[in-house]
């Protein structure tokens, strides 16, 4: 069936206008002489012609109104100047994650001190800061009934694994994740260019490859001891308040 030796993976970018004119030229030349590739292109164009469009979709009743009702109930997270009270609870929740992930995930870091162990250390310093604030002791129990995050955090990693949605981020052994947590205030400009991979109540998660520039900056600022191996992904959790 596949008798043509032409690199067929070029046909799709060709059809999608994703090739530079220079790259598109040999494709066009080949198409003119190859019935097999031509039939592929014709079929894809035929599919495109009858592809449904979003105007075909009939929205459920009160769709936007229902969304806005949810939005009205959902508080927007934004940085605060002195978020210590909530931070104490969030830190406690996240400390749990650290423990869970520390237990569950075999970290790939070599050397005497794995970067993963940095995370709890970061908490300790946060916790110390928190301890200076008296109100945290008062607020913490009240906030303690809020759900902690480990289940969600786990499920999102699982989702990535199962569906390959982040397969560029997850290595062959997707369990090799390094958790780094920080407050938005601590990171500030560092996360400006990053697109969150998940947003949860109270924190936002970024999955980073170790070769991303932000990782070097995390090292510079002491959130990580060193730039991890290339196969490692870093799960950066940024507390929003």
């Amino acid at each position, binding site marked *: 069936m596949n008798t043509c030796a032409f690199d*067929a*993976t070029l046909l*799709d*970018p060709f059809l*999608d*206008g*994703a090739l530079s004119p220079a790259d598109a030229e040999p494709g066009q030349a080949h198409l003119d002489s190859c019935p097999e590739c031509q*039939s*592929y292109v014709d*079929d*894809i*164009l*035929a*599919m*495109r012609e*009858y*592809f*449904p*469009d*979003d*105007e*075909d*979709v009939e*929205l*459920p009743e009160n*769709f*936007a109104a*229902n*969304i*806005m009702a*949810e*939005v*009205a109930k*959902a*508080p*927007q*997270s*934004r*940085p605060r100047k002195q978020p210590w009270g909530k931070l104490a609870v969030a830190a406690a929740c996240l400390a749990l994650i650290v423990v869970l992930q520390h237990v569950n995930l075999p970290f790939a870091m070599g050397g005497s001190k794995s970067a993963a162990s940095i995370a709890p250390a970061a908490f300790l310093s946060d916790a110390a800061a928190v301890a200076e604030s008296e109100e945290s002791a008062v607020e913490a129990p009240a906030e303690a009934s809020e759900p902690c995050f480990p289940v969600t955090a786990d*499920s*999102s990693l699982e*989702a990535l694994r199962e*569906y*390959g*949605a*982040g397969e*560029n*981020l997850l290595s062959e052994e997707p369990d090799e994740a390094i958790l780094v947590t920080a407050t*938005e205030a601590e990171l500030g400009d560092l996360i*400006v*260019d990053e*697109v*969150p*991979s*998940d*947003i949860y*109540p109270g924190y*936002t998660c970024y*999955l980073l490859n170790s070769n991303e520039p932000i990782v070097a900056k995390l090292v510079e600022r002491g959130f990580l001891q060193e730039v991890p191996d290339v196969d490692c992904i870093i799960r950066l959790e940024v507390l*929003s308040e």
Partner: protein
Amino acid sequence: MIDLQEQKWISAAKSGDQEAFSQLVLRYQKKVYALALRMCRHPEDAEEAAQEAFPSAWQGLPFFRGEAAFSTWLYRLTSNSCLDLLRRENRHSAATGPSLDDDELSLDLPDTAPTPETAAEQSELRDMIENGLQSLSPEYREVLVLREIHQLSYDEIAESLSLDLGTVKSRISRGRRQLREYLQKSGNFFPSATSKRMEKEGCK
């Protein structure tokens, strides 16, 4: 192209303006729902996913720095909600298709394929594509939906789904080949298209 009106809505919504956010909802509701519907298949699931994605966007907006387009960011949240919903509920395991681990994927085609009339109406052809899309795994389905329905570029798809460009390319290519195979086996989707081409171009 920068849409100034949209930028205004985004920055107002970032600082807590729900009215501005509702304008964004109105602008993107169909695209979000269209994506969710193809991903989840069932309207009630799609609604649920969209009902999660928009509030997530609202909550996360203060983090949104406008480096990526708002739309691609929103599609990512939508896609995450859909995949999460499919995974969580595992309601429609049949719709999740084969695993991506295999290099060669085999299609599970229906034994009795629908056979539309030669002069099939446009809606029937669309239905065939919808059914074909549902035969694909969600990973292939979402790239094709974002490409063909939302008309995103490869870069935008990569951004929306947090994939690298090579993965986007290969998923589009494999997804299309599977969809084509489905349509070839399902009836005379292509003969009509081919004859149309012949009419258009004549004999070469």
